[in-house]
């Protein structure tokens, strides 16, 4: 496989990579940065990527790991300087999201998903948004088959509970 083919393949899945990163990082800018970084890294280590069964799964795994790392270092306070501007971005984005979705209901689902623990959020994203089959999710998340199903089930149930709970509070 040549360089161009790798680039084409990465570009065809860049939105997918971005969505997975954003599920963890929330910030648009940082998710973009993360995906960019992963794409550069894959191109630099092309040989490893070629050995991987699918570049897509390989890239998604890298994005997953890197967004978790980035989040961690952010929480550890290494990015304290950037945090102010980051919060800024997030709030701007949330405003945008609200005007675009024009629906409070979707916002509610989003809140429910963001409430999930990282692992559940990722497994849910990979299945219910990206539509990966279980084997792919197992390899990306480095989990066994039953663990994936249990995590997914917990995530789906938690989302439902959260939505129902909020509805009850309103009425």
């Amino acid at each position, binding site marked *: 496989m040549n360089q161009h083919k790798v680039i084409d393949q990465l570009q065809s899945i*860049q*939105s997918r990579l*971005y*969505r997975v990163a*954003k599920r963890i990082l929330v910030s648009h*800018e940082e998710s*973009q*940065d993360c*995906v*960019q970084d992963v*794409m550069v890294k894959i191109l630099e280590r092309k040989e490893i990527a070629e050995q991987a069964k699918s570049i897509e799964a390989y890239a998604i795994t890298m994005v997953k790991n890197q967004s978790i790392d980035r989040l961690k270092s952010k929480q550890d306070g290494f990015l304290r300087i950037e945090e102010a501007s980051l919060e800024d971005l997030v709030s701007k984005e949330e405003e945008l999201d609200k005007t675009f*979705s024009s*629906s409070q*209901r*979707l916002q*509610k*689902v*989003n809140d429910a*998903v963001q409430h999930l623990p990282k692992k559940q959020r990722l497994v849910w994203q990979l*299945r*219910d*948004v*990206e*539509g990966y*089959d279980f084997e792919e999710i197992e390899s990306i998340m480095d989990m066994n088959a039953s663990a*994936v*199903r*249990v*995590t*997914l*089930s917990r995530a*789906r*149930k938690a*989302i*439902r509970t959260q*939505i*129902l709970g909020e*509805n009850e509070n309103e009425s």
Partner: protein
Amino acid sequence: MKTSHNAIQALLEKYLDGQTSLEEEMLLRRYFRDAGRPIDPEWEWARDVFMYTQNEQQLKVSLEEPSTRLSSVISWMRIAASFALLIVTSFGVYRLQEEYQERKMQEAYIETKKAFELISKQLKQAQEQLVYLDYMDQTVQKILK
């Protein structure tokens, strides 16, 4: 309609248990994303979820243009940081040099002072010697007389 209702209910339960296949999930998606379909109020949560995932699937990003913007921000930050470093180090070097010069001057001053002291000491000694000379002169005169 009744069977369909039961079928959807069963699929939803399977979905919540993480047991649905991709095909079954596709069925659920199609069912709940049909905006015109009146649904059981108990399933509203599911409609919201499947509407939300549809929205999310459409979230697209193109990294070409924005990335240069982002990296230009980073490179500006890099330039600023290197300038800051340059200023700090040059200031440090300047201070060091100043200190060095001051110390050199101090040393020179001490050396000069020492030299002067030496000279004055020598002069004093010479003066003392002169007294002897004077004395000798007087004695010579006495003898000569």
